[in-house]
């Protein structure tokens, strides 16, 4: 197995691997190729990102000055609900699933996922689940009970339009899609690894995607059960969450967060994985403490199921329950901190190349750590009581989800775009994108810490003219506009680079994992030959036969 020749040795392919894809739109929508499906996931997520971004800008315009009347209170409620729901379910999850779809078979040396048709099914479930959710706007009104849809507000008596029904059905459909995709990826990683690619040699992105998929199959059912229950309440006049007739609104909160907290890690772990690929390659060093990065991922996965009630400190569950969840929430900062130190140690004494991908990875380290620290402060429940449902929380969650997930995704997109398209993204535009994004991001969200500490509550369509509030909110709004412009630079970069970007070649970054052993973009069957895998960095071994990694392993 280890003497399979490397691609490019000039031998003809066996006939059955020489297949062509159907061209044109039909070829794309009918495709079961994991690469095309991955790209379609990314495109769908980009479109929904535009929608969610416009919603964010609408909110920021409304909040730009005190006592503004740009949006009505009802419209504001719909917009913030749709913004959160869109960004979590229709942007963060599909981007990560899309990248996993594209990259996992390539990184493990497989020709496709285990179930290509199921793969297409999960994509289209996502697309149409999102369409159903957005259809609510023209069907009488979007859901307006927040992305976590708390009962009893989401019950029929208080949410009289069909918005919550569309929310439930839309998310059930995308949720089923997520579970299907997760099962597919798990089986692929277990069964389709190239010879020699043992579990201890898996690229860290694959490790983290694997843990994420296990979180998905165990956490999504909690959401699906909650959605089914609220739908039954609303459409069949049942009583699950109606306190007057023996139901319990608090149960909704428990169930939603039993899903919701693992979900936070579902959308951050793959970003961790991308960072773990990008930082070593651009520091020209292997990852520091591979085992610790992998094991801390598993620790995060386990702990993520034990922290849900820290979203419910203000409910009044009692001191001992609050203390338990405060402890578990503080504990989960430990494996996350382990990772941060591993990444820093990887960069330490490395010969760092600050490409745009590396800039985003470094930016990630800084802003995500700030978000992690405000998270630790929120885990201390007396602090949480003080700032609960203020902009302090909004600042925290955007530092981890935007500063973490989105910065990680940008790092990954700049890193892998050459593999997907065969062309490099423009570095100059990329640097504009990075710096405007970093500045806009911090302008938008840093001031929210201060506003939150001053008592500005989230999810209220306006605020009184207290000293400083108008100015801080204006800074935040300007920052949001800068982020919007930054996103346009990114899209422009993609459009320009697809047409006239520099050709990438097989391995433009001199990276070490298998996806760089094939052409850019890869052929339908991915690999002509798979290089021997005798360490974690097969392409390093290939390029440095005098000093391969496997000689230095014990």
């Amino acid at each position, binding site marked *: 197995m280890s003497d399979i020749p490397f691609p490019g040795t000039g031998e003809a392919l066996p006939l059955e691997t020489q297949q062509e894809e159907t061209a044109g739109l039909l070829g794309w929508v009918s495709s079961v190729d994991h690469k095309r499906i991955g790209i379609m996931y990314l495109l769908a997520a980009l479109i929904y990102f535009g929608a969610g971004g416009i919603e964010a800008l609408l909110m920021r315009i409304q909040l730009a000055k005190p006592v503004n009347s740009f949006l009505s209170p009802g419209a504001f409620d719909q917009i913030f609900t749709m913004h959160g729901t869109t960004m979590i379910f229709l942007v963060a999850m599909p981007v990560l699933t899309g990248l996993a779809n594209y990259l996992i078979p390539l990184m493990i040396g497989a020709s496709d996922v*285990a*179930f290509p048709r199921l793969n297409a099914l999960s994509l289209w479930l996502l697309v149409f689940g999102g369409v159903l959710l957005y259809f609510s706007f023209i069907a009488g009104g979007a859901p307006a009970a927040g992305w976590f849809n708390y009962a009893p507000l989401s019950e029929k008596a208080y949410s009289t339009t069909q918005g919550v029904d569309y929310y439930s059905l839309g998310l059930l459909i995308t949720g089923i899609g997520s*579970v299907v995709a*997760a*099962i*597919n990826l*798990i*089986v692929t990683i*277990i*069964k389709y690894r190239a010879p020699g690619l043992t*579990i201890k040699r898996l690229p860290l992105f694959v490790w983290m995607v694997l843990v994420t998929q296990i979180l998905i*199959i*165990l956490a*999504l*059912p*909690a959401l*699906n*059960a*909650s959605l*089914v*229950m609220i739908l*039954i*309440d609303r459409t*069949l*006049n*049942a*009583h*699950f969450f109606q306190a007057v*007739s*023996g*139901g*319990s609104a608090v*149960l909704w909160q428990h*169930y939603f967060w*039993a899903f919701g907290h693992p979900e936070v890690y579902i959308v951050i772990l793959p970003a961790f994985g991308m960072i773990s690929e990008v930082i070593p390659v651009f520091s020209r060093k292997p990852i520091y403490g591979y085992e610790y990065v992998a094991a801390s991922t598993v620790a995060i996965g386990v702990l993520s199921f034990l922290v849900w009630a820290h979203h419910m400190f203000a409910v009044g569950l009692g001191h001992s329950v609050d203390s338990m969840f405060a402890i578990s929430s503080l504990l989960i900062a430990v494996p996350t901190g382990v990772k941060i130190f591993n990444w820093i140690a990887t960069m330490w004494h490395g010969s760092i190349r600050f490409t745009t991908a590396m800039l985003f990875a470094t930016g990630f380290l800084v802003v995500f750590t700030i978000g992690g620290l405000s998270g630790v402060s929120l885990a201390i429940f007396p602090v949480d009581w003080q700032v609960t449902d203020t902009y302090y929380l909004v600042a925290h969650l955007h530092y981890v989800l935007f500063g973490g997930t989105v910065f990680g995704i940008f790092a990954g997109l700049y890193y892998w775009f050459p593999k997907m398209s065969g062309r490099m993204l423009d570095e100059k535009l990329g640097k504009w994108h990075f710096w405007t994004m970093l500045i806009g991001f911090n302008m938008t969200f840093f001031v929210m810490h201060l506003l939150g500490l001053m008592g500005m509550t989230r999810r209220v369509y306006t605020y009184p003219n207290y000293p400083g509030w108008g100015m801080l909110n204006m800074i935040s709004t300007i920052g949001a506009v800068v982020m919007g412009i930054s996103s346009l630079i990114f899209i422009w970069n993609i459009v320009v680079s697809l047409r006239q970007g520099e050709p990438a070649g097989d391995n433009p970054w001199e990276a070490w994992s298998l996806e760089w052993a094939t052409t850019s973009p890869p052929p339908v069957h991915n690999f002509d030959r798979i290089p021997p895998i005798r360490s974690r960095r097969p392409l390093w071994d290939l390029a440095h036969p005098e000093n391969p990694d496997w000689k230095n392993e014990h």
Partner: protein
Amino acid sequence: MNTEAQTLVESWDNNRLAMLFFLLSEGTFFAFLIIAYVYYHSVSNTGVMAAKVLDPLKTGVYTIFLLSSSFTVWRAEKCLRRGSQRAFKGWLLVTIVLGAVFLFGQGSEYLHLYGQDVTISRDIFGTSFFTLTGFHSLHVLLGLIALSVIFVLALQGEFAQQHSSAVETVALYWHFVDWVWVVIFSVIYLWTVF
């Protein structure tokens, strides 16, 4: 993952492995519905209503039908592996009949309860009871459809080899449906007795 567990997992074929993870997900889904039932049993006292309207003995008999179908589908697999096609088809048919009898039992219980005005919208007992048992019946129905497809294919001589991933995968699903019912039956019906 230690190597022993690793080889065990890797020795499963794709379909069964996918089904295993799917059932893990489904099991979690049922766990949440079961926890909801137990929760309302304790905080909203739904046990009183359950004891008043449910008939554990009658449902117990139907339960025996469902549980024996787990045995018969296992026999069907065994016979296929031994190469006795007739017995394979026979046990498969018995499995389908047993499952259908259970489903009939569920239907007649629902009708009976409906006659006493016990519905999903009447109170929190009805809500949690019908949701949990309803979702289980839906799973039995889907299992019956899958088994029937297998049966028709078997009649057409589809499973001439002694090993079939499809048969084993559907059997795995069917065992799951049966053993989830053991938990549901205990929590809903046996709790009214003990």
